[in-house]
Structure formats: C-alpha cells, structure tokens
C-alpha cells in the first residue's frame, strides 16, 4: 500500500526527520559497546535479530519459529544531531558467521568505525575486508589498550594493508570526546569520498 507518510525519494526535505547510521565493528571484546556507550545520549539498548539458516520466507505452517532459529544481539545507541538528524550507532557482531546481518545494516550507512586491539589485530581483519569489499567508508580506531603506544600508525596501516586514504587514529573508547573525534573523522572521510569520486 502506498502511504503518504512513507517516502523513499532522494530529495531532502528540511522539515522532515532524517535517520542515519554508523556501524561500530571489530573483534570480540575490543570495546564496541564501550564506544557506543561513550557516544550515545541514551543508555545503549539491545536489539535482537532473529534468523533462520535456511529460509526466512513466511509460511503459515511455520508461524512458530523453528528450532534452528538463532538470535543475534547487538547494542545500539543514539545521537540526536539537530532537530531533524538522528544518528544511530550499531555495534555489529564481530564473528564472521553473522555477516548476513551486516549487509542489511551496512546498506545506506554513513560508514563504519573499525575498532582495533593491537594485541589481537587479526580480529579486525574480517571487518576491514568487509568494508573494503563493499567500498564503504571506514576509519580504523586503535583502542588504547596497554602496549598500544608501542606501535605507530604506519605499522598499523601496513599490518592491515590499508589504502592510503583510510584514516587511522588512536583513541580511548571510554572517552566521549575521543570517541566523537573518531566519528567526526569517519564523516569527514565519507564526505571526502563523495566529492572525490562518485559511487561506482
């Protein structure tokens, strides 16, 4: 049904509400929830996505979810940017078996902050690969765990085989100002990409 309140055209109506989203990715325990908490104006909420491995189509005979249904939980937070813009931050499950969720989440997003713990740098490879392959803007934010300062940006860039233009920054995910800095770096990067090259 067509409803006058649902509009999906690309025009910007200054009077209407505009939801936006950013993904917070990285390995397990890297600080995704901490970062969302530092930035969000509300205590982070938990949402669940229920998935069946085979089909998700509706069938009256299967009105009750089957046993193989799995539930994936993710944290999210919210920043009311101005009277019309509302930005959501979604902490994406780090494990690769949840990638099916990322496609839906990633679609239309501003981009991603990939959090890195240098003691377990391999954990962020799936996220970096994912965003590179989808050509989604992302920044790499090194969370300052003990020992992080023994490394420099160039070695991180090299270890992750990052393109020249991908920003790498060092931050403490518990610090709201530093976390906001990472977010600003992402939006600047996304903006630079829209002006340098049009989407292919």
């Amino acid at each position, binding site marked *: *049904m067509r*409803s006058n*309140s*649902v*509009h*999906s055209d*690309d025009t*910007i109506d200054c009077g*209407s*509400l*505009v*939801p*936006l*989203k950013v993904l917070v990715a990285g390995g397990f325990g890297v600080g995704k929830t901490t970062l969302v908490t530092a930035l969000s104006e509300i205590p982070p*909420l*938990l*949402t*669940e*996505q*229920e998935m069946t491995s085979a089909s*998700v189509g*509706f069938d*009256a005979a299967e*009105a*009750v*979810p089957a046993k193989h249904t799995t*539930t994936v939980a993710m944290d*999210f937070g*919210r*920043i009311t*940017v*101005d009277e019309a*813009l*509302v*930005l*959501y931050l*979604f902490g994406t499950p780090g494990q690769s078996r949840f990638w099916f969720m990322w496609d*839906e*989440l990633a*679609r*239309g*997003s*501003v*981009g991603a902050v990939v959090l890195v713990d240098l003691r377990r740098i391999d954990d962020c490879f799936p996220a970096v690969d994912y965003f590179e392959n989808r050509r*989604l*803007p992302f920044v790499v934010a090194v969370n300052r765990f003990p020992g992080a300062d023994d490394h420099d940006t160039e070695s991180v860039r090299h270890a992750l085989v990052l393109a020249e233009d991908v920003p790498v920054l060092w931050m403490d995910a518990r610090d709201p100002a530093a976390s*906001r800095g990472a*977010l*600003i770096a992402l*939006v*600047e990067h*996304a*903006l630079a990409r*829209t*002006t340098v090259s049009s*989407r292919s």
Partner: protein
Amino acid sequence: MHQADEQQQSGGRVVPVYAITGGRTRSGAGQDMPVETLVTATAARGVDMLQAEYRTAVELATHPVSIAEVGAALAVPLGVARVVVADLVDAGHLAAHLPPSTDGGPAPEILERLLEGLRAQ
C-alpha cells in the same frame, strides 16, 4: 511499557514473539524499512483499541524513535518490530521517516550537516 521492561529484565517472554503479529514475519508495506527508520505518532484515533504491544509502539513514538528502539522497548526481534511498525503505518497511527538513501551512502549535503552537528556537540 512496564510490561516490556519486566520482560527485558527477566529475559523471558510470556508469549511467543510472533504471536504479537499473528505469526507474520513480514508485512507488505514495511518489509524494506531499515532498522534506523524513524516513526512518529499521528493524531489518528483508536489507539485505545490496539493490542498492548501496538499501543506501546504508538506511545513510544510521541517522540521520534527508530524501529530498533521499538524492538528494544517491546523486547522483540527486529523482524517483529518491523511488522508492528509497518502495520501501524498502514493503519495511519504512525508516520515513517525513511533514511535519505538506501543504496550507497547519504548525500554530501546530509554528511555536511551531520559533521556540523557533531562538531557543535
């Protein structure tokens, strides 16, 4: 609302989640609504007649909230929240505000506004 809170705290559900939506996991109009889609309550009458979860969703939307927030408040998966929201949009109780673009990222004008807003915080 209170009921949803209790359910969230106890981690259990009284009824199967899809019972809320009559077993449906999809809704015609709202199938493609992204999780960040904002909804606001309209002035439509008849909210009192709605099922509890639906009424809660409309009450939440007194201020703009996303489908994700509706799901969190009702303690239901996103798929259920999406059906609830879509039904309420169809019934005229909620207005949906979709993201500016679902393919590719937001337009430069939007990103500039976002940047400005974040820097001002």
